[in-house]
């Protein structure tokens, strides 16, 4: 990016790279403006210094809030929310496997997507793969009731973590967003400070709409963190930078494939580097 003389074209190239990574015009302008200013005031000499500073700026924006998941509650309740097809159910399967096989935790799954065809069967498939028990409800039944049952069962069996799946929904569907708030209230009735962690899946291929998704899901469901899925493709997931920068919601996990082990903790420096590669 910073080869040769630094001139107008350099900044245009940088702008192009960030836009192409779905960072969005607002955050891009902020980053480019800042770097340009620092370069002009003479603080940064040469391509290497600029490059390093750029990555620092990007990583700083990405690094926000509490980026770890606190598992010290008994049990810890994690609620998965997000737009249709972004990877909620798959991510839950991966988390369940990770908790059980790598951290030795006991897990209970709750299949509270009672709406989509075969959503319950899909999560059952993951429960089998991960070797964890699951609570399900009939198709079309109240998702709050399934969440409730999962926590009751989880507590009865001494589970360390209860993971609850929900149906995909668009952030623009007021009735479905209200349903999500209701599921949270039901969970809190069973366990006062739960859900302890509400995770929003954002597909890395998502464009500028991702910012609206995060804003409206956060309003309805107090989102604690983002799981940025499908980073194994060519999309850079730059919208997560805009979400972190503008809404202060941290990315906590990333999805890098469709297998059980394809889940990673988020690393701001790696992310910043990959954004422009």
């Amino acid at each position, binding site marked *: 990016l910073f080869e040769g003389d630094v001139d107008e074209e350099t900044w245009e190239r940088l702008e*192009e790279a960030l*836009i*192409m*990574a*779905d960072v*969005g*015009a607002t955050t891009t302008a902020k980053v480019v403006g800042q770097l340009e200013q620092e370069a002009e005031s003479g603080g940064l000499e040469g391509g290497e210094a600029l490059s390093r500073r750029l990555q620092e700026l990007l990583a700083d924006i990405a690094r926000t809030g509490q980026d770890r998941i606190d598992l010290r509650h008994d049990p810890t309740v994690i609620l998965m929310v997000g*737009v*249709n*097809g*972004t*990877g909620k159910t798959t991510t839950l*399967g991966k988390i369940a496997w990770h908790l059980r096989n790598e951290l030795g935790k006991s897990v209970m799954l709750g299949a509270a997507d009672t*709406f*989509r*065809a*075969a*959503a319950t*069967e*899909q*999560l*059952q*498939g*993951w429960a089998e*793969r991960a070797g964890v028990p699951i609570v399900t409800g009939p198709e079309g039944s109240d998702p709050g009731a399934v969440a409730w049952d999962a926590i009751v069962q989880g507590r009865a069996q001494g589970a360390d973590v209860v993971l609850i799946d929900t149906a995909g929904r*668009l*952030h*623009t569907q007021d009735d479905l967003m209200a349903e999500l708030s209701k599921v949270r209230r039901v969970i809190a009735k069973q366990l006062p400070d739960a859900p302890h962690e509400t995770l929003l899946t954002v*597909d890395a*291929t*998502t*464009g*500028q*709409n*991702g910012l*609206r*998704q995060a804003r409206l899901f956060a309003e309805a469901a107090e989102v604690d963190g983002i799981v940025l899925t*499908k980073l*194994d*493709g*060519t*999309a*850079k997931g*730059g*919208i997560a930078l805009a979400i972190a920068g503008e809404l202060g919601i941290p990315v906590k996990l990333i999805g890098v494939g*469709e297998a059980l082990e394809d889940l990673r903790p988020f690393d701001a420096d790696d992310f910043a580097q990959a954004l422009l590669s």
Partner: protein
Amino acid sequence: MFDALSDKLQATLSDVRARGTLTEDDINKAMREIRLALLEADVNFKVVKSFTANVKERALGADVLGQLNPGQQVVKIVSDELTSLMGGAAAGVSFSPRPPTVILMAGLQGSGKTTATAKLARHLREQNGSSVAVAACDVYRPAAVDQLVKVGAQAGATVYEQGTDRDPVDIAGWALDRAKQEGKDVLIVDTSGRLHVDERLMDELVRIRKVVRPHTILLVVDAMTGQDAVNVAEQFAQAVQFDGVVMTKLDGDARGGAALSVKAVTGKPILFASTGEKLDQFERFHPDRMAQRILGM
């Protein structure tokens, strides 16, 4: 009825009417607003670049000079150009003179293929009175077969499935044989989601195509997709030369600039719009409405 972009352009060009002339400077200012609006709508960066260059040329031409309301004129030029870029009239799928007509569905994970398979089956039954079968060729995603069995039945289609133990290419071939035997008018083949850079799965798609020789291949694209949409479309076009696009999740507030970008780089039209999770939320695509939407009108 005035939208954000239109308002901005009016403001940007407000002094023009008083002066009675439109300078290159005025147009450049307007182009910056349009550029931002298009990027905000997820139109691909490179597409935006050539697009604004075209619009600028027209706006500086005789079309706008001397008009009473240059702001509106510029908006109109943009909207016209967007519509024509997206492919004038609404198009449909082509049918084989010798049934079954085979339609192959492809796309990234979670884009909405399985849902669109059932929706299209329902659409063809209702619109054309066709007898439709759907084939379950996703053996990877847990319960993908169950999902198609359910939504396929809801759509009134016959579902051909062989569980998850066979190779998807074999299942596709078997399903075609059955569709022939049973005299189906249409066979729609659902496939698993795949990344355009996944060589093994892209190769599998090519092999499925060889076996079923589809009359129409549809790429299913999520309307919320960002800048990567053109990469995806180019790679799928290279591998299987798809014929058209199904744009999904248009019931949300995504502007859908990905739609325009896919059309611009591959030349393939958008044939259908999916606007909800219910099977009847599916319609022929209208380029002019999409142009308005991208501009936020």
